């Protein structure tokens, strides 16, 4: 199983290197196929590892070390990969979904001048993400973590002639760098006490309550930044500047789920700081509500789906935060399927309309693109969580898991159900506006296929997965996924709902979801549409995304610029830079001053001669 893991990790890196070194010697499309093939090979490696582990028994995790990456005294970090139930699950999801999306990109990015660069970056991203999930110790995980942030920067800013894209890329990177920094600080504490960052010693480190809280808080900071949870979420909507497949891959299926993976992986530490773990759950809840609200007013198709992602990851954080790790990971998997599907479906529409992203201008396209429409519908139903689509199985198990926690469990439960309602509204607002309304939009290319096969096939595959992906687990009745993950991420006892709680919650959730769809139909889908209720202050707040951007600008960016400018003006140019010449000038002036003793007049010299001798004589006499 380890060779499979190494193959999985390095195949995409090989793809990147091949494309970079070949440069302009290969045709653009070839770069796409190299990249796709490398990631399919990675998927093969993941499958190999998975079956290998299954044969061994999932309790037997295996760490394989290539060489010692860094060592200083007793502290040693190896370049190692870990094959265990959690990592193989992630490897399969990441490499599988990535392969489909990169295949899709071949059609989507066809004709772009810089296709080779794009595919090199995509392969680099897949390598980074796999490094993150396969990392056998915390430092390699952090290396993958940072490289994922780097790839995200490179891909968001892919069309670098656009200032908005460049700005969005920088914003994403800096916020992620902040998360990296908090994680690094947490690691320093662990190193101080455990002298190692390998998983086993790190998770068994003995720390005081405060220290453990701080460590876990640091980890949570990194997770929140990477997964775009409040308050570190402002980079995600801007990240939509990147090409649509990038949004599908990075900002829906893989990178933003890394935070959930981190919590599941380091759960022994989180469980020792239960308060902070519940803070994570609270963050997730807050995010799922806020993002759901903001999505209601967005007019860019990609931004609606982006906020939806933010909201769904909130569910995953909620699940992981309360201790239902398997449920969180399950939702991660189904979400990867249907969210990628939604993004890619949106991409088909955008591609057909020659780059248009405003949903108000897309009305009427549904009549021309039936396949996309049905696939998008499947994805939307999965997202809202209507039985028997994927999201039903995964999301509802998270919601029901909150019921045994006490008073805050109830708060989470209610909020999550409200979130489901909002999901129904904004998702179907999108669906009805784009695909069922009457309008003038029609595709730019000739009637016939809705898109090249490289685009439609992956979308279709994901459509199937969005429908059946959830059937792998229905907690009361059959739960192979939870069993698979239990050796490494056992669900906490408080987060295990009873069967009754499961059934009741699921029923309520479906009803609430359908209610949301109903409201959306009334406002956006029906022939005689009702007026959308208008509350200007609320509308403005939602459109400004609760003013977080303005807040961060005032708290961080402007003060940094102000301090830097102040220091440059007053300290650097006022004091430090002139200091050297000032010393020189002082030397000059002193010299000139002393030089005035040389008057050129005879009598001055005689006077000094005489006086000096007299003084010396007196001194000699006194000393004698």
């Amino acid at each position: 199983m380890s060779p499979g893991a190494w193959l999985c990790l390095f195949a995409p890196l090989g793809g990147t290197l091949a494309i970079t070194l070949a440069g302009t010697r290969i045709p653009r499309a070839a770069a796409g196929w190299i990249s796709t093939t490398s990631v399919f090979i990675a998927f093969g490696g993941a499958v190999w590892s998975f079956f290998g582990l299954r044969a061994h028994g999932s309790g037997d995790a295996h760490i394989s070390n290539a060489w010692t990456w860094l060592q200083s005294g007793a502290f040693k970090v190896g370049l190692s990969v870990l094959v265990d139930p959690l990592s193989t699950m992630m490897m399969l999801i990441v490499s599988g979904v990535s392969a489909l999306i990169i295949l899709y990109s071949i059609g989507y990015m066809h004709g772009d001048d810089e296709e080779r660069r794009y595919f090199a970056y995509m392969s680099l991203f897949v390598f980074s993400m796999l490094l993150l999930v396969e990392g056998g110790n915390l430092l390699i995980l952090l290396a993958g973590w940072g490289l994922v942030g780097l790839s995200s920067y490179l891909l968001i800013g892919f069309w670098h002639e656009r200032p908005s894209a460049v700005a969005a890329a920088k914003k994403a990177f800096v916020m992620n760098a902040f998360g990296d920094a908090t994680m690094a600080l947490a690691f320093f504490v662990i190193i101080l006490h455990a002298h190692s960052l390998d998983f086993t010693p790190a998770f068994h480190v003995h720390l005081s309550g405060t220290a453990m809280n701080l460590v876990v808080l640091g980890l949570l900071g990194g997770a929140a930044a990477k997964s775009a949870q409040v308050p570190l979420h402002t980079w995600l909507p801007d990240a939509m500047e990147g090409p649509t497949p990038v949004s599908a891959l990075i900002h829906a299926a893989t990178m933003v789920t890394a935070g959930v993976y981190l919590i599941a992986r380091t759960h022994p530490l989180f469980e020792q700081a239960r308060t902070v773990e519940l803070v994570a759950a609270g963050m997730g809840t807050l995010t799922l509500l806020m993002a759901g609200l903001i999505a209601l007013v967005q007019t860019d198709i990609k931004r609606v789906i982006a906020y939806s992602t933010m909201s769904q990851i909130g569910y995953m954080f909620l699940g992981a935060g309360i201790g239902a790790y398997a449920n969180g990971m399950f939702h991660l998997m189904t979400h990867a399927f249907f969210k990628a599907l939604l993004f890619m479906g949106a991409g088909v529409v955008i591609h057909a309309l020659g780059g248009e992203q405003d949903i108000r201008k897309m009305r009427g396209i549904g009549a021309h693109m039936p396949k996309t429409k049905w696939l998008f519908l499947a994805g939307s139903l999965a997202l809202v969580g209507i039985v028997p689509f994927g999201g039903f199985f995964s999301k509802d198990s998270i919601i029901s898991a909150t019921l045994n926690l006490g008073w805050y469990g109830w708060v989470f439960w209610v909020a999550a159900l409200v979130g489901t309602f909002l999901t129904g509204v904004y998702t179907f607002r999108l669906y009805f506006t784009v695909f069922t309304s009457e309008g003038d939009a029609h595709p730019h290319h000739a009637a016939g296929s809705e898109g090249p096969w490289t685009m439609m096939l992956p979308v279709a595959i994901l459509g199937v997965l969005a429908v059946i992906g959830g059937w792998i687990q229905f907690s009361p009745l059959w739960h192979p996924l939870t069993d698979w993950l239990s050796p490494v991420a056992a669900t906490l006892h408080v987060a295990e709902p009873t069967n009754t709680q499961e059934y009741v919650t699921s029923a309520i959730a479906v009803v609430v979801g359908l209610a949301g769809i109903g409201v959306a139909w009334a406002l956006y889908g029906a022939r005689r549409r009702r007026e959308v209720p208008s509350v200007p202050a609320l509308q403005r707040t939602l459109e400004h995304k609760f003013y977080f951007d303005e807040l961060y600008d005032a708290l961080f960016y402007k003060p940094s610029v102000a301090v830097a400018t102040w220091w440059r003006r007053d300290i650097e140019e006022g004091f430090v830079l002139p200091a050297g010449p000032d010393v020189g000038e002082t030397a000059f002036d002193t010299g000139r001053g002393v030089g005035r003793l040389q008057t050129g007049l005879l009598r001055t010299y005689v006077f000094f001669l005489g006086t000096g001798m007299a003084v010396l004589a007196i001194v000699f006499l006194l000393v004698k």
Partner: protein
Amino acid sequence: MLGPGIAWYLGVSAFLFGVGALGVLLRRNPLIVLLSLEIMLNGANLALIAFSRHAHNGAGQIFALAVMAVAASEVCVGLGLVVAIHRRNLELDVDRLSELRG
């Protein structure tokens, strides 16, 4: 011991030295400065000889002879400089002759 006490000789010597010093410091003509310098030297000589006589030690008188030799050679050099300056039609005024300055 014949004659006035040593204090009188030293007084005259100091008087001569003082006059000479004032002349060196205050007069402008280099010839007068040299003259005043001579007076200072003579004052010093007088003090040397007076002490020599007082202490019955000949060393003072011999040293006075040495001083006279030095005075003579220095006057030669000085007068040579004055003549050279005069030949160039420069003013014989030490305040004006001050190019060697900082």
